[in-house]
Each structure stands twice: as structure tokens, then as C-alpha cells.
């Protein structure tokens, strides 16, 4: 009999509203072993009648002792996300398992330039990478595709100029007047203008809804990026 359930109890400490439908939850997790940026946790909720359900969420913060941050977007008919974004209050507890996932991670000692391509709440694990970069010499470029300015996560933090991190906002529906780019979906021209050329052999991380990830990965390989250097994380139908 194997006993490796390793679920931990996490206590909500505080929250930050990112958009009207998304918030960051800061948890205290005693004994948290730390994590690599890009890893995720499985969150398990159990009702008083014993019914239990779980979902995966990307970790948003850089590794920190006993501290874990998740940014959760409400999925309208979701079973778990509305509870996390609207109901859970400081002092409340949930169960979580992790950190898990060793594939979609950036290891801060790696040296090639990094290209991050995020769609919507796909920004979350990419932000963990940006936050983990610290004073590293590795140059980062982040392409952040979002519907309109109201959907922007981490606005205050991204606004500050971070040396070595270039951020391009790609609005798909409504662009602010000073955007310098008409609203529209991610195109090859965006990757050429704001990404790294394939010759620089960047480590590429793409995260977002399935359709966005497929399109971005196809555009990147079409431009000559090595498919083996492109790591993806898709949100499936169970994101709720």
C-alpha cells in the first residue's frame, strides 16, 4: 500500500483583485518546500457531505518560504474558481498538492534568452518566471495577449520598468489609443517585432487557452524556432 497523498493545508492570508473577475490569493503553507517558476499545484475542495473536486492552478509568485500565490480567473460555470475568487476569505483553508510539473519550468541558472508568450490568464506562470528572474543576466521578452486593458493582471508591477525584461501588450479586441498596434490576434509580425529571432535560440514558454497556444506554437515554428525549445501549457476545458 502506497501512502503518498501529500496534500497540504493552506491558509488564505490576503487577496489582491487583479481584474473584476480575477484575483490573487496569498496562502500561508507551513513546510512549503519552494518551487520552480512555471510549476503548478492541484487544489482540492471538499464539501461537508464529502464531495471532493480538484483543479490545477499555476503558481504566480517566485519561490518563497511558506508562501504561495495563485492568481485565479473566474470561469463562469466553474465549480472551483468562483469559490476561490469570490467566497474564500482570509483565515479560510484549502488543501493543495505540489509543487508539481518539471517540464514547463524555467530554471534561473539557464542562459539562453527567454521568450514568454501569454494569452489571458496564461500570464500567471510566466509572471512567476519574470519574478524569479531577479538580477539574472538572462534577457526576457514577454508578449502578453489580452482582450482589452481591463483584463490586465499585475498592472502595477508590469508598469515599472524592469531592466532586462521587455514587455509588449497585444490587445485582441480593444486597444488603448497609445497602443501602437491595432487590436487583433497574435500574428507572426508580433513575434518578429517583439520576440527573439530564432537564431538566438531562445527558450520559449507559451501559456494560454488551447487555441491561443496552438496558434502561437505554429507561428513560432513557422518562423524557424526549434519545436524542441518551445514549451507549452494549455488551459483545458476543466479550468473552472
Amino acid at each position: 500500500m502506497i501512502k503518498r497523498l501529500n496534500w497540504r493545508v493552506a491558509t488564505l492570508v490576503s487577496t489582491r483583485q487583479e481584474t473584476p473577475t480575477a484575483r490573487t490569493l496569498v496562502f500561508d503553507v507551513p513546510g512549503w518546500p519552494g518551487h520552480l517558476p512555471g510549476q503548478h499545484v492541484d487544489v482540492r475542495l471538499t464539501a461537508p457531505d464529502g464531495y471532493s473536486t480538484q483543479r490545477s492552478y499555476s503558481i504566480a509568485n517566485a519561490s518563497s518560504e511558506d508562501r504561495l500565490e495563485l492568481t485565479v480567473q473566474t470561469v463562469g460555470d466553474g465549480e472551483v474558481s468562483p469559490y476561490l475568487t469570490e467566497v474564500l476569505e482570509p483565515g479560510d483553508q484549502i488543501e493543495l498538492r505540489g509543487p508539481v510539473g518539471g517540464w514547463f519550468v524555467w530554471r534561473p541558472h539557464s542562459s539562453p534568452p527567454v521568450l514568454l508568450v501569454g494569452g489571458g490568464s496564461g500570464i500567471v506562470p510566466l509572471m512567476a518566471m519574470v519574478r524569479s528572474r531577479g538580477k539574472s543576466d538572462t534577457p526576457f521578452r514577454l508578449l502578453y495577449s489580452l482582450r482589452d486593458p481591463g483584463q490586465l493582471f499585475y498592472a502595477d508591477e508590469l508598469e515599472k520598468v524592469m531592466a532586462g525584461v521587455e514587455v509588449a501588450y497585444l490587445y485582441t479586441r480593444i486597444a488603448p489609443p497609445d497602443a501602437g498596434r491595432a487590436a487583433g490576434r497574435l500574428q507572426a509580425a508580433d513575434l518578429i517585432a517583439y520576440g527573439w529571432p530564432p537564431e538566438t535560440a531562445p527558450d520559449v514558454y507559451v501559456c494560454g487557452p488551447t487555441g491561443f497556444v496552438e496558434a502561437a506554437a505554429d507561428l513560432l515554428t513557422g518562423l524557424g524556432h526549434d519545436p524542441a525549445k518551445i514549451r507549452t501549457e494549455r488551459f483545458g476545458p476543466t479550468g473552472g
Partner: protein
Amino acid sequence: MDYQDGNALAGPLSEIFTLDVTVAQGTCAGCGLRGPLAGLHVYGAAPGLVARCPGCEEVVLTLVRGPKDVWLDMRGAVSLRIPVTE
């Protein structure tokens, strides 16, 4: 139909493997494509997951978590190459 990456297998598989198996290179029994389990297309949600080959969409593995056991069917994988360190 919408799917997730094999990254989603990391949590459920951590229950039965000590190493993170999503970084292991698998070979598809259907088409011979090699790649990390993290690159598989995963359908469904825990407790029942079906992972298909991104090349030919054949089922590589299924994982079902029951109340008393975990049932892992890997008939679609010829082999798993698992990176280890000394």
C-alpha cells in the same frame, strides 16, 4: 474537443511515482513519436484522465483514481526514458 497538456498529469502521477514522470520521454506505440509526457494531449478531468499522442491522437495512457487504487494503463507507450541524476 478541448484538451490540456500532459503537464496536468504531474499531480495525479506524483501520487504513485517518486520522480516527476511528465519530463520522461515516451515513445508512442501508434506512430513512434517520441516526446515528453508533458507534451501529450490530456482529455477529461481527475479522477479520470486520458492522454493521447500529439502526433497521431492514439491513446498513450489512461489514469483513473479510484477510492482504493490508482489504475494506470500505459498500453500506448512503447517505452519511457526517465532522466535521472547521480
